[in-house]
């Protein structure tokens, strides 16, 4: 059987794809393909615009030509677009995808619409590691930062999960232990900020706020594998997420090995969010906001929700970077600042519309 869509006159809300001989069938909200297509085009458009603006403006057509390695008649374009601006844009997009996905998974797991990767201590752990590195070791190489940040995020998340595990896990214990350990990590970060050398502290603050400034192909290639590996795992587990988001009892009675699934999914969240934070610092609100927007667009089924949330995240970060670069030009605002400033009012608006 191929594609099966409802009758012509009354379109069904679902799109069912069966895999013929493969033991695979997919049931998607009908809106998903269109939302994904429009989202992808919008994100690409913003990326092209973003690569065109700056101290050295380049028309969008020339940006496109340069990316596709077509001649534009200006030898500077290749360096500016392909070496400086393209990797930064791709990093921004990937970071957005990772944060959006992580947020969507975590909100389902904790059954708390306000949960974001921050409660797993990822931001706090990465922040502590990176700020310590910047403040304590004055002239440290910038290439060590992502490594330290990822290590910090991973260790704190592991500690939270380990401490919350007691003959099975529980979303409540997880959240509360997360609060406690995050508070401790943040206190140590504050200590660094209070007593560190003022110049280092300011650099640390920029990092803490989240920025894709000066990111290169190195960061892109370091980030990509995480998404390529963990993205499909998340999609494979999408149906289990649907069950888990109904509550442990329901999921168990549907035959789900709840603790195991939650463990794997938390691992996915830590990997995605940790890699994102290691690359770009803590870009706030994307992990919180993207899943909400996605849910409004394609409904609650996770198979459609996850890719939509990822794409929404990418759009948000790319747009925030564009705004941050142009708003106070030539001064650049870190995009984490912009996501918070745009995200807050939008978030309020979104939630109130949802209630009516």
């Amino acid at each position: 059987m191929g594609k099966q869509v409802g009758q012509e006159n009354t379109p069904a809300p679902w799109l069912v794809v069966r895999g013929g001989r493969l033991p695979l069938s997919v049931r998607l909200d009908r809106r998903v393909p269109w939302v994904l297509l429009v989202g992808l085009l919008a994100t690409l458009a913003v990326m092209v615009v973003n690569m065109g603006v700056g101290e050295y403006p380049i028309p969008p057509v020339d940006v496109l030509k340069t990316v596709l390695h077509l001649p534009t008649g200006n030898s500077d374009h290749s360096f500016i677009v392909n070496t400086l601006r393209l990797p930064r844009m791709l990093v921004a997009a990937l970071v957005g995808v990772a944060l959006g996905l992580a947020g969507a998974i975590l909100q389902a797991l904790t059954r708390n619409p306000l949960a974001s990767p921050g409660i797993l201590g990822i931001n706090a752990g990465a922040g502590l590691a990176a700020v310590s590195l910047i403040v304590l070791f004055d002239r440290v190489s910038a290439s060590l930062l992502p490594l330290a940040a990822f290590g910090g995020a991973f260790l704190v998340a592991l500690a939270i999960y380990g401490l919350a595990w007691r003959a099975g896990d529980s979303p409540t214990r997880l959240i509360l232990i997360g609060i406690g350990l995050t508070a401790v990590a943040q206190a140590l970060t504050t200590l660094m900020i209070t007593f560190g050398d003022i110049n280092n502290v300011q650099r640390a603050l920029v990092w803490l706020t989240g920025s894709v400034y000066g990111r290169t192909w190195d960061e892109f290639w370091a980030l990509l594998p995480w998404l390529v590996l963990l993205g499909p795992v998340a999609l494979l587990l999408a149906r289990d997420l649907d069950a888990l988001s109904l509550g442990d009892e329901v999921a168990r009675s549907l035959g789900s090995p709840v603790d195991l699934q939650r463990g794997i999914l938390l691992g996915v969240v830590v990997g995605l969010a940790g890699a994102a934070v290691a690359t770009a610092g803590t870009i706030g609100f994307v992990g919180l906001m993207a899943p909400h927007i996605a849910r409004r667009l394609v409904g609650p089924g996770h198979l459609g929700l996850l890719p939509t949330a990822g794409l929404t995240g990418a759009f948000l970060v790319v747009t925030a970077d564009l705004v941050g670069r142009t708003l106070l030009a030539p001064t650049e605002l870190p995009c984490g600042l912009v996501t918070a400033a745009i995200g807050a009012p939008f978030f309020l608006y979104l939630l109130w519309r949802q209630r009516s």
Partner: protein
Amino acid sequence: MGVVTTSTASGGLRLVRSRGGLVAGLVLGLALLLAILLASLAFGAAEIPLPEVWAALFAFDAGATNHLIVRTLRVPRALVAALVGASLAVAGALVQGLTRNPLGDPGILGINAGAALGVVVAVFLFQIHTLSLFALFAFAGAALTATAVYGLGAWGRGGPTPLNLTIAGAALTALLSSFTTAILILNQRTLEEVRFWLAGSVAGRDLALLAQVAPYLLAGLMLAFGLGRQITTITLGDDVARGLGQNTAWVKALAALAVVLLAGGSVAVAGPIGFIGLVIPHMVRFWVGVDYRWVLPYAALAGAIFLLISDVAARLLLRPTELPVGVMTALLGGPFFIYLVRWRVRR
């Protein structure tokens, strides 16, 4: 869209303990508070023996250095720590009851973010450098933000429901702290000036500053204690509370006012001290149960004791360098809190 409720956070509804035991606990707590107050007067950069502390309090000799230290430095500081600790813990308990969210603390209602922005604006735009003016701006920022959050929350569908308040608070907090960070990133002088204040500290506060904010804090505490029964009802859900004949909108507005007075006043005098508002109420509920008529006074006692201990530890740990007490609270309380959660939360 359920925010996790406080009742599951403490591992299921616990029946209230016997009245006698609770009263005895309060008396014991008060005695402990007095003992720690005295200890806080004795320990520090210069150690002063207890008899001399006693003499400084009741037979003051203006010629003795130690007497001066006790009277002008340590007494105000200890009082500030006790009052701020009590206020923050009670404010946190109120917010958690009001929003039925275990993640709730005064920071959620935008109080810390508003106060911080107030102080940063004071330094950045108005070149203000004195602590008492910091306090004024912090209080104004806190009160304005909390009012805005409450207004936004009440404006949403269904009035000031837990979810509305929490979301409005989280959103406004993110917005304001991004402004604060922007100023701090763009202006190094402001960062230098406020970073110690931002860590939270009770050092160098004098009696004049305390007198400035004490009325707000005490009024807030009285108001909170008066609302104990109503808050307990609200934690059972708006429908239940209304069914029991409660005017929930009024109770919420009054509780929000108490939170603004308590947390706003605390931040004004000591900076944004985290952890206490978030975690002390949880600890107290583990012992006392979920009846806010008892949770609130116990939270006040526990908060005061905890901040005093943290302050003494902050003075002694790296003597003569002092750690900001806001850092100390998390370092001391974090592990203890994790221990409690691990062994007391079953589901």
